């Protein structure tokens, strides 16, 4: 990085901003300059918001979601079907499903996927908590909504196996034709998956 021209404070700010996903050193410099220029409108409220987030936001001990309450808003929402639990890899997936308003259910965030190559094992995920949650009763259906990657599918397989003998219905997201997709443009793997998981009309 070039020699600092504005003092170590701004350099430190730039370095930290550059660690954010989607930002590189160049956009971090722009963001830092932007913040410093708008001290009152942006920098002060952002500092306060970040301090508040740091103090108040934590991880829900039931489902692994992030919230300022524990148990989180979703876990305590009685308008939701708490007997149906959607298992996702990460909070970002939970948000994606919530944005889609796909299902009015509860969630379980695994905190990642099994990956020997990345050194992530079952003990690093919230699988134990998931089993405990089901054994505690009240969960009727588990929807496995992990990504269709090697690691995601291995994790799904692992969870299904661990659930054997427990009184819970296990389903998984359908794989296949995207909404608005044309068959002609789909690859063979997707088409075969769609055909395998066809449903009655």
């Amino acid at each position, binding site marked *: 990085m070039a020699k600092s021209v504005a003092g170590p404070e701004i350099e430190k700010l730039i370095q930290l901003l550059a660690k954010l996903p989607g930002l590189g050193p160049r956009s971090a410099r722009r963001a830092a300059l932007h913040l410093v220029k708008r001290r009152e409108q942006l920098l002060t409220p952002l500092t306060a918001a970040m301090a508040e987030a740091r103090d108040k936001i934590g991880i829900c001990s039931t489902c692994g979601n992030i919230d300022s309450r524990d148990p989180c808003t979703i876990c305590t929402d009685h308008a939701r079907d708490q007997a149906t639990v959607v298992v996702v890899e990460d909070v970002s997936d939970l948000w994606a499903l919530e944005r889609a308003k796909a299902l009015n259910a509860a969630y379980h965030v695994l905190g990642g996927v099994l990956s020997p190559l990345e050194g992530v094992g079952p003990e690093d995920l919230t699988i134990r908590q998931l089993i405990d949650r089901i054994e505690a009763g009240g969960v009727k259906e588990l929807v496995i909504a992990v990504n269709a990657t*090697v690691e995601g599918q291995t994790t799904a*397989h692992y969870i299904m196996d661990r659930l054997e003998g427990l009184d819970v219905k296990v389903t998984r997201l359908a794989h296949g034709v995207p909404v608005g997709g044309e068959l002609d443009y789909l690859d063979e793997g997707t088409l075969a998956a769609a055909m395998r998981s066809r449903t009655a009309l």
Partner: protein
Amino acid sequence: MSEPAKLPATLEPPRDAHAPGSLPSSRVETLRVGDFRNYSVLDLAFESGFVVFHGNNGAGKTNLLEALSLLSPGRGIRRATYGEMARQGGSGGFLVRAGIVSNETATLVESRLPPPGGAPASRHLRIDKTVARTADELLEVCRVLWLTPAMDGLFTGPAGDRRRFLDRMVLAVDPAHGRRASDYERAMRSRNRLLSEDRMDDVWLSGLEAQMAELGVAMAIARRELTRMLTAKIAEAASASPFPAARLELSSGYELADFSTAAVETEEEVRLALRRSRGIDRAAGRTREGAHRADLAVYFAAKNMPAALASTGEQKALLIGLVLAHAQLVAQLSGFRPILLLDEVAAHLDPGRRAALFDLVALLGVQAFMTGTDAALFEALAGRADMISVASTSER
């Protein structure tokens, strides 16, 4: 889908198959390279079905073929890293942009390596200015096939090279094959890691083995299908081709499974075999059986002799025959006339076979880019080819 050109029954193909007005239906019309290998910036336009780059050793002929090979998924004809493709003394990044006409549709394909800066070096791909999600999207624009001097030792060299050659052939007709192969590789490496770390977690290993079985069997079936269709194409062309016919023998890499049963049963069989071999695989430090151990044995059909025993020239001729049969298959199955990159091919052929190669390419209706040190090698193409003289900056 257009019908593929049939090879003639006799050895006298029409001389005017590449006459003006009958350009290959899939072709590269323009190429711009920037900061690529020895080129700071170069613009080329192609007007014929044959394009010949001629010039001295080290002038940069193969570099142009390498640029064209980036129109295909993967790291091109040299399998180099993208960083190596960037010009020495340049920005550290490069640009390759090609204007392609395919079945009367014009497409602009751009591969760009951003100058180094933290992120892992991968190319950014744009197709008609839209960011491509994966390199496999290139297969919807064109299919590029190649033959390079590095492939000369294919029949005598390691099985890994033949497997890669086989998988590239499968990929050209079945775009899902690349994803399948990389997922299989990842699942296998994950299982190897668990075994080497002595984590004999039965449930976890079963999950990985189930995927290895599903992906591996799909790969084996795709390879077998390609071998079968290629064998049929070779037989169809054998009587007319000046190149010796190959007999292909695929070994799947699986000892138990014979693939005569339904895929689902084979998968189950493979899954159980993997389960049984955990101990052996752990001791060996690798997975002993599977799609990653496949091999393609090639024989001279007429003599029933392993290709590896023939002379270098005969092996080359056999390989050319194989690549041309594959080109024909790709045209038939994908609806794209593939684009052929033939690096230093002409020099190894006697004049009769050389002329026959040109005629076959013309008959197939594909665009071929060829290199050679001497323009005279391509005399038989007079009037049919773009002859482009390549000279390095130091020579100019």
